[in-house]
């Protein structure tokens, strides 16, 4: 395929206007000239391309999924992808020119609103890359606000999130600490945590605030917010995390949807784009990017973050998803996810598994298997099930959503029960 419309005649005329005889004349200064041969595939027609890509996609195996751990298999209503694919939304970019970007801008405003309403926070931005780096941005924000450089992380944060935090801290010359004291910039806790435990973190927020630190709740499975107390209610200053659960496909790990929401007093420290409501020259309601003096294109080395391109399309998907599901739909998702996980847990306990959750759990839980995790995994695989994450020592992290039917659950149990 060749997406270049210029004809031979056009090319000749254009070269003529430019005042050269060949395109090569235009790139003579680009040195050193590449004269080798590139090891690229042969050009393909669209038909050939479709065949090739289908073949690759078929090499993957999509099985019944009981894995969560930061990526959740929820149902996506059909209308989400149809609306998302509209070229006017799909093929734009950052809405710098508000007059012809009201669709994007209003959708961002709605996204920010949804995030605030779900988390109980005051303001949210237009999106960050994904959950783990969103959490790292929360840590950077806290250090910048408090002028301190230590970060406390409660146990059972998603291990990849912890790794990202470590990497960002190393780069930004900050330290992870195991004490909450007067040098602590922020206290971070995931809720539900990596094992699925849910907790009222009020006590931790108080502990943070007593020493002048900010309290950050990390949300990785946001459908939980439909039935759980929002972090804004138990003292969070920042909520950061992942919103892939809201209408975004698993897609082997990305693109997903990072978000960050804060209490009002932290607004000027937020990273990334923020959209606000205003009026236009004709007196109509309209939307613009605002508080841009925080951002790299204005502030350069003094910006709150370097983020530029974000995950706007994914934020749009989440907005459409939430609008379609509504209060009833989202609550159903949460209740079913909860119910299926608890059903599977009960059945597994009967089959000799031991639940290791120390607190009530939402839709993920950890069990100790009566046999090795490897054997478990391979038995499940034979039944076409990806059964969970092996945490070592025969411990298994299992997740259910509304997508796991009762039949799936029975198949899971029969695969692992008995000899």
């Amino acid at each position, binding site marked *: 395929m060749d997406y270049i419309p210029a004809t031979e005649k056009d090319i000749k005329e254009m070269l003529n206007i430019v005042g050269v005889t060949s395109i090569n004349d235009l790139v003579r200064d*680009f040195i050193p000239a*590449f004269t080798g041969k590139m090891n690229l595939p042969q050009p393909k027609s669209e038909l050939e391309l479709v065949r090739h890509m289908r073949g690759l996609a078929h090499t993957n195996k999509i099985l019944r999924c009981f894995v969560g751990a930061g990526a959740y298999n929820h149902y996506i209503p059909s209308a989400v992808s149809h609306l998302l694919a509209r070229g006017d939304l799909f093929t734009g970019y950052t809405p710098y020119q508000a007059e012809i970007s009201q669709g994007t801008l209003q959708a961002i405003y709605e996204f920010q609103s949804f995030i605030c309403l779900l988390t109980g926070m005051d303001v949210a931005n237009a999106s960050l890359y994904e959950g783990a780096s969103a959490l790292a941005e929360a840590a950077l924000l806290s250090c910048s606000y408090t002028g301190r450089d230590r970060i406390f992380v409660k146990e059972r944060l998603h291990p990849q999130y912890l790794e990202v935090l470590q990497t960002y801290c190393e780069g930004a010359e900050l330290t992870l600490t195991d004490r909450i004291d007067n040098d602590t910039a922020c206290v971070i806790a995931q809720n539900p945590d990596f094992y699925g435990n849910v907790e009222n973190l009020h006590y931790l927020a108080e502990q943070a605030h007593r020493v002048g630190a900010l309290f950050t709740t990390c949300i990785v499975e946001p459908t939980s917010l439909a039935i759980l107390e929002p972090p804004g209610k138990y003292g969070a200053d920042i909520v950061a995390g992942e919103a892939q659960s809201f209408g975004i496909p698993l897609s082997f790990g990305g693109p997903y949807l990072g978000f960050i929401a804060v209490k009002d007093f932290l607004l000027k420290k937020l990273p990334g784009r923020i959209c606000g409501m205003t009026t236009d020259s004709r007196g109509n309601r309209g939307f613009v990017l605002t508080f841009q003096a925080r951002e790299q294109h204005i502030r350069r080395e003094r910006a709150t973050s370097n983020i530029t391109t974000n995950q706007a399309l994914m934020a749009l998907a989440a907005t459409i998803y939430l609008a379609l599901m509504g209060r009833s739909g989202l609550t159903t998702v949460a209740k079913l996810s909860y119910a299926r996980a608890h059903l599977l847990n009960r059945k597994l306990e009967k089959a000799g598994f031991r639940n290791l959750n120390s607190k009530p759990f939402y839709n993920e839980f950890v069990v100790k298997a009566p046999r090795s995790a490897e054997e478990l995994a391979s038995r499940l695989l034979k039944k076409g099930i990806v059964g969970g994450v092996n945490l070592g020592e025969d411990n298994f992290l299992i997740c259910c959503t509304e997508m796991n039917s009762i039949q799936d659950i029975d198949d899971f149990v029969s695969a692992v029960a008995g000899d």
Partner: protein
Amino acid sequence: MKIIFEYEEEKNTGHLQKEEEEDVCIELPDDISRKELLPIPNVNEVDVVRHYTNLSRMNFGVDIGFYPLGSCTMKYNPKVNEDAARAEGFSNLHPLSPEVCTQGSLKLMWELKEYLKDITGMDDFTLQPSAGAQGELLGVMMAKAYFRHKGEKRTKAIIPDSAHGTNPATASMCKLETITIPSDPRGNIDIRRYRESLGPEVALVMLTNPNTLGLFDENTIEISDLAHKNGILMYCDGANMNALLGITRPGDQGFDMIHLNLHKTFSTPHGGGGPGAGVLGVKSFLSEYLPVPQVVKRDSGYSLDYDCKKSVGRVRSFYGNFGMHVRAYSYIHSWGTKIRKVSEHAILNANYLQALLKDTFDLAYDRRCAHEFVLSSRRFGEKSALNIAKRLMDYGFHPPTIYFPLIVPEALMIEPTETESKETLDRFVLALKKITSELKEDPEMVKQSPLSTPVGRLDEVAAARRPNLRWRPSQRTNQSGSE
């Protein structure tokens, strides 16, 4: 337009099986259960579909018209790549699936890295960074790790004044101090000032090539040689790779690292501002600092390798914006060995536009350009770039990037890309010339423009002074919500 929260409460449609079908009993303690009604509205599907369809009609994208937004490479996003990314085998694959289930994805990622190595002349790649800015961040982190292992403490980054804001913003996120080097009268980095700023405290030079003026730095090789003599790493901001495909390779120009914006050069769509993919390529001596995991090819198949002691760790969960990798991979397969043509036509289109417009405006630097060029509208007075941009919308065009790079007054930064026809470019030139005469004949009208858009110019001052950044339930009563 209403906002979604202003719809009257409606009957919600059944996207899922009804919960009554099952005995759902939530037994969560009171102190962790939501007490208030979930404050999001129930709107029926027809209204939701109309709502977002109507929003989309107030938007502009490449599918609607010419989008010469400089530095952003707003080329056509081939539809066939969307089908590829949406294929069930890719889109429904959980990232923690066992490797027997993920061979197709891993193969794609491995091959994509191979292609990118070849295209850039680098030795290794990571696909992990989510966008260009995160690629930069990772690059600077790796540079720091590299010097730490060598036992050197270097605290500064050299960045030209034409650079994109992410470059200095990234440096300071990693606690490096920026040394800003001015540009010379030909738009190159001022080589004398550059030489003076070299020293043992400098960690890296961050260079965009061609730079944001759309000019290939004529001293690139000398710049790299000088950096290397001082033990400094050369970082290439590869946002402008659309000018170089098959023509010259950053790896051969002396760069040690480069990030690419797959969402620019390799045509992955990023409506509304993202997603991107900011893959990072490095020379072999930096390989061991790359993030984990790395995709490797073994006799038994493709696999994810977490075993790398010097790795800086991770900059995000999982493996990157995989959906973007699929599209970029598919795009590369459509072009294959003929990929040089992309850049040739991007450059031809830009030079053609520049030639037609350089007398109407002031050319920031009077040289042949690469894939984009920067005009100054200063002869039309203050705010003229803004006014021209706004008026262009009435002619059906997306405006160019304005007021960037910062070193050009009243800057109009124009990047046509290779996917635009001569006819489109001619219409654009005509519109710009028409607007310049309007500026003389009816300047008030131009200042009022755009006149044909869903909304007029927006009050940005009010937006910042009385921030309304989210809908609140209390707003329901006092909003008109007329449609």
